[in-house]
């Protein structure tokens, strides 16, 4: 019997805080996939420099948002399902390969959908996509991380 896992408790267990938390809400989550949302507030510091006089969300930040929702939230969920002693897991990004299709401007809300490719030996590898509020593909790729519980 799988334990129910509260979506809010996953967000509270994320090892990030402002200004580097890129998850607002988990919309759906199960053993194989997760869907989450984030709104890029126009006040983010990086918009001052990326780019000068023309703020656009940096690709690395989009990748980070995909990783936080798509790999870390799902990873915490999977650990909580499988092992009750997995409080405050340590997480390491191990690979990312992402292609970008559309820019994200300040104030935009994005949706991240991630599907598990595998979760074995504490490595979680996922196929992750990000969409705009209109449903357009912003970026997609494959991201993997190690969930270290010790």
């Amino acid at each position: 019997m799988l334990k129910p896992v509260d979506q809010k408790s996953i967000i509270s267990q994320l090892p990030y805080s402002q200004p580097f938390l890129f998850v607002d809400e988990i919309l759906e989550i199960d053993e194989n996939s997760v869907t989450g949302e984030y709104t890029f507030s126009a006040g983010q510091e990086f918009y001052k420099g990326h780019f000068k006089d023309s703020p656009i969300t940096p690709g690395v930040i989009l990748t980070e948002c995909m990783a936080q929702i798509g790999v870390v939230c799902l990873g915490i969920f999977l650990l909580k399902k499988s092992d009750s002693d997995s409080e405050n897991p340590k997480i390491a990004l191990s690979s990312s390969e992402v292609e970008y299709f559309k820019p994200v401007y300040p104030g935009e809300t994005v949706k991240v959908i991630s599907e598990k490719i595998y979760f074995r030996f504490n490595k979680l590898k996922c196929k992750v996509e990000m969409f705009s509020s209109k449903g357009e593909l912003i970026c997609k790729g494959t991201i993997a991380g190690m969930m270290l519980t010790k």
Partner: protein
Amino acid sequence: MSEKDIIDRLKKIVEPYVQRMEGLKNFQEETDFLKDLQINSANLVDVVLDVEDEFDIEIDNDSMEGMLTVGDAKSIIQRKISGR
């Protein structure tokens, strides 16, 4: 399957993940995946998944933790094949 056969197949599997090519030239039982081949722990997971597919076996967590060298991997593969 001979020991040499297993080690040859293993070499093909690890090759794409190796960062230190020198270690690959001298691929033998004592070769350490992390130290000699500089495969990181995340890619070692992929090596193990590829080994499972190649030899049609399942590697459990304990076996994975004991798989530090080519010789360790060979022994585990032999044991799993014979218990199949």
